[in-house]
């Protein structure tokens, strides 16, 4: 077994929008081993949340991750409301679902564009991101900001959806529906995309369950698991929707799952708009409120997968302990399996396929396949043949 040739992807790399560092042990064009080192984004959020009041924490939780900020907000707010046994008006629940689904559309379209960029199809990237501006305008219309919309708050929702907004929303959604259908056709029969996506980054259903994968990565391996359906929160039990699954188990399946989820989300928003109950949107809550003692587990289906928050409160105005586990972390052992045995050229697209969001992930870090340490449970022995590469270059990362 000769010396392998370490190719660092990151921490600064055009493929990755965020700093994570994957040390790929490669051999010619094949990836033999993956050793990842994240932790670049670790800002010590959980410690900071322990000495801020519940209202102050609203602003930190929202900025754990810029793309799924609303999921973190909904999860946090739901957690505190459950601890305080607070009932929020039904209209607020519907508005929260609308904003959550709009964010899913925005996050999936963003991801689709970046994935197209990963395989070098920049034209599709620019087209998708141009159409994504429609969603950003809708979000700006409702909440006043393109990202970090701060709609949910403890006790309900901050801003109401007026009839004019509703008209605007419906118009925007119709455009989005057509465009997403068009992109679905492209992704299904554009040969150059299929060539880079079909059969790439395989994750068998058994591996997916065993490695506790979550979200679209899990559903692309044929397993029907979605927190909105299994453990419905806010208004999801009153909204008919269908959990999208594909059983191709590869990158193309993950593309299709996300596109169908965008179409599903659009239908859900239209359903919500039709059945929006009247009434107040918020229940008044004292700013320095005390949360009674207890512990709460709150789960939400973020665009990237199951997001879980765990609150332990000792009856003060500040949480005693607040634990956040973001969906991307759940998928990292799975991505490590997918990367092995593939090409360097596939690394960006396979990595992008789990839609990594390392700003959330830096709650916890990564799973380390040591080159020299064989692991009890590494599945099959990797095919190894080394060609002799010298390793004297100065850039050798520690």
């Amino acid at each position: 077994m000769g010396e392998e040739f370490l190719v660092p992807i990151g921490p600064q790399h055009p493929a990755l929008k965020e700093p994570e560092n994957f040390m790929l042990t490669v051999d010619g064009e094949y990836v033999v081993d993956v050793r990842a080192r994240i932790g670049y984004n670790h800002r010590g959020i959980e410690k900071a949340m322990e000495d801020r009041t519940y209202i102050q924490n609203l602003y930190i939780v929202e900025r754990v991750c810029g793309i799924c900020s609303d999921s973190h907000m909904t999860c946090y707010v739901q957690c505190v409301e459950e601890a305080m046994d607070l009932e929020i008006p039904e209209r607020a629940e519907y508005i929260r679902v609308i904003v959550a689904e709009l964010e899913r559309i925005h996050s999936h379209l963003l991801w689709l564009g970046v994935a197209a960029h990963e395989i070098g199809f920049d034209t599709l990237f620019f087209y998708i991101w141009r159409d994504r501006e429609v969603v950003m305008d809708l979000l700006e219309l409702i909440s006043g900001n393109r990202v970090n919309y701060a709609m949910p708050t403890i006790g309900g929702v901050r801003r109401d959806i007026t009839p004019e907004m509703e008209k605007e929303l419906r118009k925007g959604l119709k455009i989005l529906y057509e465009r997403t259908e068009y992109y679905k056709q492209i992704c299904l029969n554009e040969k150059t995309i299929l060539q880079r996506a079909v059969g790439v980054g395989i994750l068998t259903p058994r591996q997916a369950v065993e490695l506790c994968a979550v979200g679209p990565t899990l559903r692309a391996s044929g397993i029907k698991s979605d927190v909105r359906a299994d453990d419905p929160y806010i208004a999801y039990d009153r909204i008919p929707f269908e959990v999208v699954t594909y059983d191709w188990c590869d990158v193309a399946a993950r593309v299709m799952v996300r596109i169908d989820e965008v179409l599903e989300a659009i239908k859900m928003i239209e359903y919500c708009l039709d059945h929006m109950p009247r009434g107040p949107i918020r229940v008044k809550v004292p700013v320095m409120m005390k949360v009674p003692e207890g512990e709460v587990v709150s789960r939400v289906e973020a665009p990237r997968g199951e997001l879980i928050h765990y609150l332990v409160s000792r009856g003060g105005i500040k949480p005693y302990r607040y634990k956040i586990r973001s969906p991307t972390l759940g998928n990292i052992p799975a991505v490590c399996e997918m990367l092995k045995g593939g090409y360097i050229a596939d690394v960006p697209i396979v990595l992008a396929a789990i839609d990594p969001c390392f700003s959330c992930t830096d709650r916890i870090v990564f799973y380390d396949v040591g080159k020299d340490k064989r692991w009890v449970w590494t599945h099959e022995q990797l095919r190894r043949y080394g060609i002799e590469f010298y390793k004297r270059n100065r850039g050798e990362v520690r």
Partner: protein
Amino acid sequence: MSWEPVITALEIVLFPGFLFIFCYALFCEWVDRRIFARLQNRYGPLYTGWKGILQPLADFIKLLAKEDITPGAADKAGFTATPILFLTIPMTLMFLVPVLGPRAIAAFEGDLIVVFFMTTLINLVVFIGAWSATNRFTVVGGMRSALQMLSYEIPLGLAALGPAVLAKTLCISDIAQWEVEAWKSFLAHPTPLGVVTAVVLAFGFALFTLGELAELEKIPFDIPEAETEIVAGWHTEYSGKKLALIRLGMDVELIFGASLMTALFLGGPSGPWPIPPAVWFIVKTLLCVVLISTLRALFARFRIDQVVRWMWKYYVPLAVVYMIAIQALAVVI
């Protein structure tokens, strides 16, 4: 004291020579970027000069003024030689292609073979430059560009030899002239044989364009500098003046490719009388640049193994079939 040497000296330096190539290369880069941007529904360079036309010039001057870093571990010779060679080779090749009149400045029998030898040399130079930069990304980029070169070089050569065999000469300028006469005679009295040759030559043109795309490392064959995988491929480590030369070299390679396409397939710089040949040359090469740029915007990037497999499975057999058709025609004509 005859004026001959002075005129040729002037020609070399000024019109179809360095100054013209330099300006035309930058102009073609602007055209390329604008079309690429327009196809992506955005503007592209707009504010430098009229409609952004001076943008490539601004990039070039800025790069000249930047600090030029040579990595400590790189071996100096290979690292500094590469940019210079990368620019001069396409520049010299430009003199083999007819620009001003029907004959190129340095046209001689067999210059088509020289052209192919030199283009392979470019890839060799790229490999040396990549290897000497000792940065992992460049090494992988250099390997890929060599790998890719192996797969497209032969079919490209075959595609170019088509017209040469028909014209029974290996001098590019003569091929261009032969085409012009063939075209005139065909227009005079169209024969079924003429139609067949036209179809075969058009097929050759398509093959040649595909080969050119791979040679110029444009998407979908831009794997050696695949931005998302290996940062900037083989020229990751270059900066400042060296990078300026490399980028200019790429542009000159672009117009050389385009002018080769016009000379071999579109009849070189000659056209109906009122417009001078030089303008015809510019019109035709611009057409080819626009073609390359649109192709560049329509595809995703292939993986290196797919390119190699696809080239050997489809591209080489097609080129061989094309050659057989050409030989059959040659016998008949």
